[in-house]
């Protein structure tokens, strides 16, 4: 069992949910990323999702688009992000999933990417523009290096596809909460809760189910976990703090830790 699914299993046994925290590596500078990761870990995230910036992030809303621009401006490269992951792993005992679009991985070459990610002890990859049908090569390279490939399901995913995706994903299944792009929302829609209930019979006993896109507040976390999900993914809420306090890292880190604590609290039974 991978480190990622192990964390989900442990929390589930205690009756708690998992908090997956996303930040963009290199935002606002590569030097700050390990400190930002540290603040999230102290606040209580269970898994870190570390973004590798891409110039054209079509699945992301304005918050993460802006984070990509800042990270690329700071000259963040895929290789640097994998090295940053290694540094974070040295300091913290936390599973890490790298999240990026397919082209930076394709350009580096699958073999090299997974060799480097294995060396950095990265536990999984999430690539939102790589559906199952196009992922055979990546899956092969990932399996060879012992890295989880975390696939996404969406409200438009048919039950037929869901079966295939559940069979192909490892670590957890990333469920996109609504039709749209990433970005903090004010409330969880009822349709998200019924979506969780539709997907659960496919994942139960097979693979943990985590819900992302729009999840930003403790009450969102509670409602989604109450619907039966094993975890939540929070991204834009953290990135908004980073954007607002990029000139004042001390303040930023304190706010990140405090926000994480509140979100983590909401995952406990």
């Amino acid at each position, binding site marked *: 069992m991978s480190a990622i699914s192990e964390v989900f299993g442990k929390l589930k046994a205690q009756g708690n949910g998992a908090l997956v925290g996303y930040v963009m590596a290199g935002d606002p500078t590569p030097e700050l990323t390990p400190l930002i990761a540290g603040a999230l870990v102290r606040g209580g995230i269970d898994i870190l999702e570390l973004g590798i910036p891409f110039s*054209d992030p079509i699945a992301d809303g304005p918050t993460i688009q802006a984070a990509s621009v800042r990270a690329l401006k700071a000259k963040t490269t895929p290789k640097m992000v994998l090295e940053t992951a290694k540094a974070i792993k040295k300091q913290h005992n936390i599973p890490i999933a790298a999240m990026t679009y*397919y082209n930076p991985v394709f350009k580096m070459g699958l073999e090299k990417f997974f060799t480097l990610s294995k060396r950095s002890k990265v536990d999984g990859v999430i690539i939102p523009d790589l559906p199952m049908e196009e992922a055979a090569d990546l899956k092969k390279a990932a399996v060879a290096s012992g890295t989880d490939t975390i696939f996404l399901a969406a409200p438009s995913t048919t039950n037929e596809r869901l079966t295939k995706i559940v069979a192909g994903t490892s670590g957890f299944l990333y469920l996109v909460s609504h039709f749209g792009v990433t970005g903090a929302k004010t409330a969880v829609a009822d349709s998200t809760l019924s979506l969780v209930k539709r997907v659960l019979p496919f994942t139960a006993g097979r693979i943990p189910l985590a819900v992302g896109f729009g999840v930003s507040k403790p009450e969102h976390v509670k409602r989604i976990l109450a619907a039966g999900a094993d975890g939540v993914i929070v991204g834009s809420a953290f990135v908004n703090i980073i954007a607002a306090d990029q000139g004042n890292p001390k303040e930023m880190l304190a706010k990140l830790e405090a926000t994480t604590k509140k979100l983590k609290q909401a995952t406990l039974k």
Partner: protein
Amino acid sequence: MDGKYGKYGGRFVPEVLMQAVTELEEAYTEAQQDAKFQQELNYYLSEYAGRPTPLYYAENLTRKVDGAKIYLKREDLAHGGAHKINNTLGQALLAKRMGKTRVIAETGAGQHGVATAMAAAVLGLKAEIYMGTDDMARQRLNVFRMNLLGAKVHPVEAGSKTMKDAINDAFRDWVTNLQNTHYLIGSVVGPHPYPMMVRDFQCVIGNELRAECLQKEARLPDAVVACVGGGSNAAGTFFPFEDEASVKLYGVEAAGEGLETGKHAASLGAGAEGVFHGMLTYVLQDAEGQIQNTHSVSAGLDYPGVGPEHSFLNALGRAEYACATDKEAVDAFLALSQTEGIIPALESSHALAFGMKLAKKMKKKQTVVVTLSGRGDKDVESVAKFMGAKI
């Protein structure tokens, strides 16, 4: 059907879009086999868009160049002033058939936006167009034309503020509004089935020119030339000749200020394989796989990718891809304006620049057909600026 051209093409899109592209493929396949759909499309192409467009023998230009006979496939005479209407009518009819009430589109030069707005207006669909703010500035006439036609234009401030960023935002709109919205992509790019479907709708260009050439010359052309940004007019021009080994196919990309300056939009000429906007194809990118900003005097060619079928034809060697600089395009623009009284689009001027060079090297009894993909009224301001003239 996996939508692959050799290894190129495919469907690299977020999961939320997989169902939508699958449904689109099914609806398109059904429509293709439905005589009523084809009849309706043909009705609009002839009665509304003014097809067939002529194959014009540019006698004065031929004399000036002093080489092979140069024919122009006059897509500039199609309704809206470009070949774009062939595709927008097809997709808008398909959108209606699928029960969609709203179409969205990206536009670079504004020609696809205008053609989308026209098709939407005549077929009773709501149209919203994404356009980079840099393109809006250099094509402001087309922005106002879209407004006049009842379409809403969304300015896109992100990235290079050109077509690639407009496509990004159109994708983001589509994932949010899938239920009632069809994304009307304007070129042979994007996830399957777009490259195939747009090429099919544009094949009317090549099919007509083939028949017209046989009628006028009693033989097929020796070469056909078309400009390539995403590559839709080229795909429609080439496809009916792909199995005719005697017909040479030439695509012409934008060399901007010159390939060596890095300021260009020649994805096949200077790019590398990559995955972008839903497809595996040639892409202008840096060593880390970040998509690069492009430059061309013509907004319609200012795109860092190219249709996957062109990557395939290039790899096979079935089509050759050359490029023309901003200056060569503007020179060709002036040459055609002055010899034939036809003001070509700056995009088409790239094809013309290469076509003239090619004709010069060929025998006088041979023929070259250049697809004049659009008219250049929209570009008059850009050309004046390029020449340093005040208007």
